[in-house]
């Protein structure tokens, strides 16, 4: 039995909503999340805009402090790490952001962008030939020596994302949070990056948290998938299982809403059109957060909050239908 590399325990992050000097309430961005990410796997995290995916990713990397709860990385509480240990954690856990245009410093050349983390972590002492080291990273992400001394603006979106990935790999991390790494890219280039990420995972033994609202890419990348709705994990299952047997009404609606680039699929599909808008995460109502849009809602749903329970081996769902 492998131990989780990352574990969150009842993790919570509330952001105060202020108007002038009054606090009107709180955005429950992440609201009691318990997740485990196993060594070597890709855990996919899907959910609609604003449901808390990025906040969860940032909490796991200890880039922000939680309101309550904790994150264990390799068994250690990341919010208690200090000095050397913290630096070592920062080396082992990296992030790649969505926007390859703003995540790279436009005044820095590719060599410096990729080499900088080594200087910060004082790892450059171990490296004999910096240029060769950076070239080896560039080659890992499908770029070449000739790209070393160019600036970000000379590259296409897909190439910039490759540079960002090379930078994340520079410190030989074990875990990478991929926060919508291809959502700014076109389909033809997206496939290049996704395949590359899969290859790197295999060759370097990486563990990924893959965040996206594009469910088709999440399916392509992930071993297991967690579905998030308004700060909560509502379903968690093996990737294949989730698509074959979605249990939570929200997951069912979400999967049915995805248009497939296929004329056969269209005829087979019965679409669930949800009523209403995505509700605000500010001061969510008691009971199930999906209740106002749910097509299977019952009386109990307005009163009691459903807990995430394992209804079949490895398949977790938070919904009163399965209580």
């Amino acid at each position, binding site marked *: 039995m492998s131990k989780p590399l990352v574990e969150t325990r009842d993790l919570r992050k509330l952001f105060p909503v202020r108007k002038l000097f009054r606090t009107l309430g709180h955005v429950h961005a992440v609201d009691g999340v318990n997740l485990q990410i196993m060594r070597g796997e890709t855990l996919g995290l899907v959910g*609609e805009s604003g449901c808390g995916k990025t906040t969860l990713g940032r909490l796991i990397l200890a880039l922000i402090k939680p309101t309550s709860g904790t994150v264990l990385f390799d068994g250690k509480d990341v919010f208690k790490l200090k000095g050397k240990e913290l630096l070592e954690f920062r080396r082992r856990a990296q992030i790649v952001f969505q926007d390859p245009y703003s995540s790279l410093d436009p005044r820095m050349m590719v060599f410096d962008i990729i080499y900088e983390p080594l200087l910060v972590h004082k790892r450059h002492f171990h490296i004999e030939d910096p240029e060769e080291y950076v070239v080896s990273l560039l080659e890992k992400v499908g770029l070449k020596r000739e790209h070393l001394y160019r600036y970000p603006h000379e590259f296409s979106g897909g190439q910039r994302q490759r540079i960002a990935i090379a930078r994340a790999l520079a410190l030989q991390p074990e875990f990478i949070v991929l926060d919508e790494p291809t959502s700014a890219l*076109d389909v033809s280039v997206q496939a290049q990056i996704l*395949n590359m990420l899969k290859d790197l995972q295999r060759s370097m033994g990486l563990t990924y948290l893959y965040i996206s609202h594009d469910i*088709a890419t999440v399916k392509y990348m992930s071993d297991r998938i967690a579905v998030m709705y308004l700060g909560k994990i509502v379903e968690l299952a093996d990737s294949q299982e989730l698509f074959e047997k979605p249990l939570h009404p929200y997951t069912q609606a*979400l*999967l049915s809403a995805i248009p497939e680039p296929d*004329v056969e699929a269209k005829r087979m599909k019965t*679409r669930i059109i949800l009523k209403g808008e995505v509700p605000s995460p500010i001061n969510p109502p008691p009971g199930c957060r999906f209740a106002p849009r749910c097509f299977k809602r019952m009386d109990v749903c307005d009163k009691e909050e459903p807990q995430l329970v394992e209804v079949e081996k490895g398949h977790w769902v938070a919904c009163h239908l399965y209580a």
Partner: protein
Amino acid sequence: MSGKERDVILKIEDLYVNFYTYAGVVKAIDGVNLEVYRGECLGLVGETGCGKSVTMRSVLRLIPPPGEIVKGKIWFNGVNLLELPESEMRKIRGNKIAYIVQEPSAALDPLYRVGYQVAEPMVYHGLVKSFKDAWGRVIQLFKSVMMPEPEERAKAYPHELSGGMKQRVVIATALSGETELLIADEPTTAVDVTIQAQIMDLLSKLRKERNLTLILVTHNLGLVAEMCDRVAVMYAGNIVELAPTEELFKNPMHPYVKGLLAAVPRITASKDVVLKPIPGFVPNLIYPPPGCRFHPRCDKAMPICKREKPAMKEVAPGHWVACHLYDNVKGVGDGNE
């Protein structure tokens, strides 16, 4: 043309659009030809920067400087829009032809109540006498786009509405005139999938009810498969393939289109299907590759591809493709024209 003649509402003929920038002349649209039939839903797909929006904005003559339509004709109901005086064009824009943009916030003025903004074009185009008369129609339109609590929402300011609701307001505005042709340019890129499903459902319903012609501009092949009767695929300023939807997805012919279909992840795919990316990236349109603009990325490229631009050819009824691989294939119209 083959088959029975169909009623053409819009015909784009040999359209060229350039942008004159400091870096050089961007040859954004490079000889686009397209017919749109009355009552159909046509999908216009392609990746970022391929020219979808510029083509559609040309129809409305809304190309901002430093852009310029350098050549071409655009026939709407038999009238060449590019030759109309601006005063006539204004009667068509936002009335007979409506345009829905990607970002609903950009289309709405933050300072005015949304109901007022829906009413304004009706007053402008003389469809109602006053704002007071318009209000009843605004509420009706809000009901037809299934806005929850229409009376209340009409009095709201844009920032008080969600992204999905704002897009409903924009659609209501688009329907406020004597709309015949609706151009929806990425109407759901800014909203979530469950909301996208609502809006697409709404657009299909409205199209049937009002017998609208709809051009759906998108990079989402899934939406096209679901919504459209025919699909045109653009690449670097050209339409490279045009076919009935089912035909295009079952029997794509252009190497780029085949490549695109092999590169999209699908939720129905089994776990071991590997995506096949298209190598390279989209060309710079200041120095576009000569001949076929796809040739640097094409695994089927031949010497002729670097020299000559392939023309659109009808290789099966209604199925057009611009690629030299089909030069020796008998075209539909060959021999009797």
